[in-house]
């Protein structure tokens, strides 16, 4: 079977088992999607605790709506649509100034990937726009096999301190391994805007690691 057809048949099976009251099927769905659901929820609502509540509400809505699920979209798309609707409603109720305009228009603000001061000026006679202060080699400390817990902690903190729109895109793409198309669909982003957010987020993480390696060389 082609992967897409195989996926569809697995999903149909899962839905049938869920409707039949199979707890293992529900538990499997919860374990597969709760972490990424929480990741999306936290982009909209003000706290971790509220994000947990939104995820819980979403699962209850999935159970109560399972008989109406018609399989026109994938189960994943359906579940995440329920989540984003709930998260947005909750954000309004919490009167959160939705800090999410970046999701709609990431090009609105200019955020260079690397501090412009590290390049020679455009007016430079021989090397305009070339590195004035090039990146230092990261050496062995960045080799995958020997990366320490502290480095991973720097990265984790860096990710959590990204602006919400960049944070959710980088997390879904790079932590959860989602394809770009799924991220665009769930967050309602154009492919180009998704890439801008991914680029800015990854660039900031590179900057955070660069500072860390420079201080701990």
């Amino acid at each position, binding site marked *: 079977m082609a992967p897409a057809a195989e996926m569809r048949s697995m999903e149909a099976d899962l839905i049938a088992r869920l409707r039949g009251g199979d707890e293992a099927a529900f538990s499997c769905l*919860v374990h597969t999607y709760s972490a*990424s659901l929480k990741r999306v929820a936290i982009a909209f609502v003000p706290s971790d605790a509220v994000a947990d509540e939104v995820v*819980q509400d979403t*699962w209850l809505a999935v159970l109560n709506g399972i008989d109406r699920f018609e399989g026109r979209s994938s189960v994943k798309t359906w579940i995440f649509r329920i989540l984003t609707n709930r998260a947005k409603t909750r954000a309004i109720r919490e009167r959160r100034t939705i800090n999410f305009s970046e999701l709609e228009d990431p090009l609105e603000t200019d955020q260079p990937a690397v501090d412009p001061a590290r390049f020679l000026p455009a007016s430079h006679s021989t090397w305009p726009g070339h590195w004035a202060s090039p990146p230092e080699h990261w050496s062995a400390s960045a080799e995958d096999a020997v990366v320490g817990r502290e*480095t991973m902690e720097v990265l984790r903190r860096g990710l959590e301190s990204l602006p919400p729109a960049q944070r959710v895109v980088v997390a879904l793409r790079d932590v*959860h391994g989602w394809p770009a198309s799924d991220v665009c669909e769930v967050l309602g982003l154009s492919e180009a805007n998704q890439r801008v957010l*991914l680029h800015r987020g990854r660039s900031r993480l590179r900057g955070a*690691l660069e500072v860390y390696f420079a201080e701990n060389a």
Partner: protein
Amino acid sequence: MNDDTRKEMACQELVEVITDYLEARLPEVDRGRFEAHLASCSACQEHLEQMRAVVRLTGRLTPQSLEPATVDSLLSAFRRWRDS
């Protein structure tokens, strides 16, 4: 063909299109300029390698999920739903 297509890519431009390059979304002509620049610039090679390292290392972070107690209460809710 305008001037830009023939002009060498500067480092400052390269760092801004690196994600488009990694995502294979850079227009053909810019991909050529990108690769031509990269071939002769060790600083940009280092920068690209660092971006790739960021992606690989981020992939090793553990996703944060629900608390076990929350999952338990969801499973209880499931049983109530099933038995109702």
